C-alpha cells in the first residue's frame, strides 16, 4: 500500500489549468521531495491532498482510502505556505489550540515535548506576532508534528531556518520515517538540503509530473563528470573544448568535462599539449544540476 496515490488529478482556476492529469505515488516510509518551478502546481497539489481546495478531476487516495475519509485526514500534519497561527496569541496558546483540535490526550505534555524537539521551549510565552521568521517556521513545523501524524505535507518548511534549524529538521524527518509506516511530502527550492534527506523525488512542471524516481534511481541517472584545475585555465578550456562536446566552468573555478572520459585520458591529452593538471577528480552531478538539466531539456 502506498501512502499517497494520485491519478489524473486536475485543477482549474477559471480558464487557467494549474494541475493537469497529475499522477503521483508516495510509498510508505518515504520522504518525498516534491520539486518544481514557482507556479508549477506544487502547492495546489498539496492543498488538494489536504482537502483545502476541491479537485476539478482525478482521484487522491491516502493509505488506500479516499482523501476525504475523516479517519485518515485526522492523522495528517500540514505546513502549507505559512504557519496557521493567531498572531495575538502566544506560541503556547496556538499550540494548545491545535492540540485541542486534534483531541490529544495529555496535551500539555505533548506540546512541551514538541516545542523541545524544535528548540522552541524558551519562546512558548512569546506572542506569535513577535516571533522572528525562523521562529514562526519552527512553530509551524511544531504544529504539523502535533498528534503524531501518519502523513506530513510540508510546503517549503526549510524557509527561514538557520543551519541548526535545518539540521534539526533533517533529524526529525529521519526519525519520523523510521518505522516505515509514516511518510513525508516536502516541497522545497533548497534542493541541496532536500537531497540530504529525500528517499523519493517527484518533479512537476506546468501541472504535470515529468519524472518520479527514488534517490537510488536519481543517483544512477546523474551524469558523472571530471573536474580539473590547471595552471592555465583559459588555454585548458580552449583545448578541452576542441576535443569534448560539453565543457563548463563551475562556481568554484573548476573545469567540468561531462563527456564519457576518464581523468587519465584528459591528463595525458593536456600533457601532450603542454598543460600541467594540478587537480583532477570525478564526481556526479547533484539534484540541483539534475533538475536544472531536466528543466532546460538537457541530458541527464
Amino acid at each position, binding site marked *: 500500500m502506498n501512502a499517497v496515490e494520485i491519478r489524473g488529478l486536475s485543477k482549474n482556476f477559471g480558464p487557467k489549468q494549474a494541475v493537469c492529469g497529475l499522477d503521483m505515488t508516495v510509498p510508505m516510509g518515504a520522504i518525498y521531495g516534491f520539486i518544481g518551478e514557482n507556479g508549477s502546481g506544487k502547492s495546489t497539489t498539496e492543498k488538494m491532498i489536504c*482537502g483545502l481546495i476541491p479537485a476539478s478531476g482525478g482521484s487522491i487516495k491516502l493509505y488506500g482510502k479516499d482523501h476525504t475519509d475523516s479517519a485518515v485526514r485526522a492523522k495528517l500534519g500540514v505546513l502549507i505556505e505559512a504557519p*496557521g497561527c493567531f498572531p495575538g496569541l502566544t506560541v503556547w496558546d496556538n499550540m494548545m489550540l491545535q492540540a485541542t483540535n486534534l483531541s490529544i490526550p495529555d496535551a500539555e505534555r505533548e506540546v512541551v515535548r514538541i516545542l523541545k524537539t524544535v528548540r522552541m521551549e524558551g519562546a512558548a510565552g512569546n506572542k506569535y506576532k513577535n516571533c522572528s521568521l525562523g521562529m514562526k517556521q519552527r512553530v509551524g513545523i511544531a504544529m504539523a508534528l502535533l498528534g503524531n501524524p501518519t502523513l506530513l505535507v510540508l510546503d517549503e518548511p526549510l524557509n527561514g531556518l538557520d543551519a541548526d534549524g535545518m539540521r534539526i529538521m533533517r533529524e526529525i524527518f529521519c526519525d519520523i520515517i523510521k518505522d516505515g*509506516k509514516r511518510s513525508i511530502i516536502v516541497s522545497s527550492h533548497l534542493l541541496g538540503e532536500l537531497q540530504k534527506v529525500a528517499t523519493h523525488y517527484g518533479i512537476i512542471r506546468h501541472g504535470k509530473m515529468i519524472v518520479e524516481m527514488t534517490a537510488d534511481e536519481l543517483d544512477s541517472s546523474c551524469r558523472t563528470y571530471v573536474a580539473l584545475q590547471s595552471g592555465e585555465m583559459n588555454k585548458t578550456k580552449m583545448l578541452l573544448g576542441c576535443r569534448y562536446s560539453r565543457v563548463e566552468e563551475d562556481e568554484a573555478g573548476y573545469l567540468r568535462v561531462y563527456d564519457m572520459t576518464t581523468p587519465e585520458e584528459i591528463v595525458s591529452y593536456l600533457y601532450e599539449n603542454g598543460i600541467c593538471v594540478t587537480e583532477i577528480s570525478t564526481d556526479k552531478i547533484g539534484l540541483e544540476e539534475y533538475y536544472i538539466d531536466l528543466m532546460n531539456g538537457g541530458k541527464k
Partner: protein
Amino acid sequence: MENAVKFESVSFGKRVKSMLKVDFRRMLKSKLFYILIACALVMPILMTVMMSMMDGSESVNQQTGEITIMEGPENTWQNIGTLPGEPLGGAEIFAMCNINMAFMGVAVFVCLFISDDFRSGYAKNLFTVRSRKGDYVISKTLAGFVCGALMLIAYFVGSVLGGAISGLSFDLGTLNAGNLVMCMLAKIFLMPVFVSIFTLISVSAKQKAWLSICGSLGGGMLLFMMVSMITPLGSTPLNVVLCLAGGALFALGLGAVSKIVLKKTSLV
C-alpha cells in the same frame, strides 16, 4: 500485512466536542468577546441614565421656533421590549436602541471570529484534519449563539442597573415576571436565526472581514424589525416555541448551506 496502518474513525460527538473546545478556548481568549459583553452591559446603563437626565428638557428649532420636549424612559423594561399599548417596532428610540441591538452586535463577533480563522491561516490546520465541514459550522453557530445569549443577558443586567440608577419604575403593569422570562428566552432562542445568517455570510466571504460584516449587518437589518414583534415584553410560551422552532430551522437549513459552501470552495 504487518506494515498496514490503522486509522481510528472519530465519532461525530467526539469531533464536535473537540471543535467546540477549540472555539470556546479561542472565544475566551479573544478581546473582542469581552469588549462586546462589556458594551452590552454598559450601553443600557449609559443610555438609560443619559435619557433620564434629558427627560423634560426643551429644545427650540431656530428656524421654525418649534419647541420639542425630550421624553426619557418611564419604565426600566422599555430597554427590553415594548410594553403593552406601545406600538410594536415603532420609530421611538427605545423601540430601536434596546436589547435587540445585541442581534446586530453578535454579527461583528461572528464575522471577525470566522474571518480570523481564514486570515491567520488556522483554517488550513482545522480543515486538513477535519474533512467534515459540518463540525465547523455547528461549532461556529454554537459559539455565536453563546456569545449572543451572553450579550442579551449582559444587556438585561445593564438595563436593570441603569433603571435602578435612574430611579425608573420596575412596574410591569398587566404583565408579570413570567412574561419577562419568556421574552428573554424568546430572544435567546431567536439568536440562532441571526447567527446562522452571519455564519453563512462569513464562510462565504472567508478572510474578507469587511465584506462579511457589511453583508451580515445588511442581512440582519432585514430581520431586525421582526425581533420586537415576535419577542414583545408580554411574550408567552407560544413566542418561545416559535422562536425556538425558527432558530432550529434556520440553524439547520443555513448550516447545511454553509457546509456546502465550505465543501465547494477553496479554504485557503
